[in-house]
């Protein structure tokens, strides 16, 4: 019985947590449409955030997805070579990168860079009473801190995903050329033939949702920070772990949905 009660309590906590995320997103949206802040400054903050979370992530996202592209090509070639189907490397790389790994790897990098930073920033502001200060100045912390982050992530995550698709395919291409099975031109044509627009849009939709989830989790963990510096550390860790878990879960759901949709089409 004890076990059942614990499972029940854990389920209740999880539902409440997800409810909190939705609420945060909802109040951010409300701010966007009925902004008590003047819009130009909201946009200004969003652009600043976009530079940090998006443009700042470009080098590391590029490096990692390039390597992942090479790795997929290597792993694919290992098996495809035995079947004498090396020309399929290009389509293997392009489809797995655009539909799955591009958005996912981007999300993981952004969680590490920005999800954790959101939690640490807001958590520190909780500890130093800066959140209280905003409130006593009649400024809504959600409008001031969270809405710009949602805006920035909603724009930058899809952009980063498309960029990582491109770099990942480039990584596969490097292997294709190095292995002597492709030229740059033939690899490009093979990739173009393998991909349909749907593959890329699938990835973009995933990236957008990942971005919103990462922001919501990072900010919620920040707001729920208790007193003391060690609490900020706890929030940051929790933001990263929870975001990774949720991103993978959502990825599973989306991939299943896209698979089923394809089956009926």
């Amino acid at each position, binding site marked *: 019985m004890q076990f059942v009660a614990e499972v029940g309590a854990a389920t209740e906590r999880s539902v409440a947590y997800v409810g909190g995320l939705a609420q945060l997103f909802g109040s951010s949206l409300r701010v966007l449409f009925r902004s008590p802040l*003047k819009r130009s*400054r909201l946009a200004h903050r969003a652009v600043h955030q976009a530079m940090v979370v998006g443009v700042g992530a470009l080098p590391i996202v590029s490096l990692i997805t390039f390597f992942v592209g090479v790795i997929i090509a290597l792993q694919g070639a290992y098996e495809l070579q035995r079947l004498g189907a090396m020309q399929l490397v290009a389509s293997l790389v392009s489809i797995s990168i655009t539909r799955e790994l591009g958005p996912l790897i981007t999300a993981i990098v952004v969680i590490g860079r920005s999800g954790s930073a959101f939690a640490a920033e807001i958590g520190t502001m909780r500890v*130093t009473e800066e959140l209280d*200060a905003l*409130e*006593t*100045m*009649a*400024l809504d912390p959600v409008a001031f801190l969270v809405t710009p982050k949602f805006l920035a992530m909603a724009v930058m995550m899809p952009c980063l995903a498309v960029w990582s698709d491109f770099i990942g395919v480039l990584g596969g291409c490097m292997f294709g050329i190095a292995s002597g099975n492709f030229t740059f031109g033939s690899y490009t044509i093979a990739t173009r033939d393998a991909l349909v627009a749907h593959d890329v849009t699938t990835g973009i939709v995933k990236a957008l949702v990942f971005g919103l989830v990462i922001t919501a989790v990072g900010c919620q963990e920040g707001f729920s920070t208790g007193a003391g510096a060690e609490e900020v550390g706890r929030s940051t860790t929790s933001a990263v772990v929870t975001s990774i878990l949720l991103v993978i879960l959502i990825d599973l759901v989306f991939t299943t949905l896209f698979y089923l949709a394809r089956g009926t089409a």
Partner: protein
Amino acid sequence: MAAPAVPSPVISARDLRVQFGDREVLHGLNFDIFHAETVVVIGGSGSGKSTLLRTLVGLEKPSAGQVHVKGVDITKASSRAMDDIRKKIGLAFQGGALIGSLSVGENIALPLLEHTTLQPTTIEVMVRIKLEQVGLTGFENYSPSQLSGGMKKRAAFARALAMDPEILFFDEPSAGLDPITAAGIDGLILDLKEAYSMSMVVVTHELASAFLIADRIILIDRGNIVAMGPAQEVRESQHPRVRQFLDRVADTTQDDDVDHLRMLTEGLR
């Protein structure tokens, strides 16, 4: 509305109770704070004085009782009504609580930018005036992390003053400062008292500065008001807890420590 014969208070608390979980921190406080007076709330650590301050500005919700600020009951006010009141008050936090991602000048400009339609150039001038008033001329472009403890408090004063508040709250203005800097802060509060006709509520445990700046003193002990009155009256009070506090006598029993431990362990439960 005809002017009342008796001045109406800017803050009026009736049977104010605040509870954290099932532990009551403030046990039914009654007091009034009038226009243009400086009230200093003193009390030991854990007496509930900081909770009182947080309740008066709406950061904590009372569990019972009423608090009228500028005639509005903040225990029942909507969030919009609360925001309207907050635009008329300023709070200088103990650690400054300046927004770390903004410069000192931007911190002071923030409430003006968000709540007024003033031109940026006007705001710039106002920021400079406020900084000058607190003795931080020329520090607009510094980041809060570059300021010393005393300067942070001064910058926090400037931000609290930005909207020309009718009530100004100070949380431990001289805590954690060396005697010279603390005296400077006391002098600054006296200057502000002279320059503006606003009500000031100062929470502190520094006796010397309390008697220096106060018109009236409220002494809080374990969530109850044990003494309230003009500074001189409180200084001469014969109430045992007041004497103990003013004469800096340690508690003979360990009750306080046991209470404190119980409070901590109950919090963990």
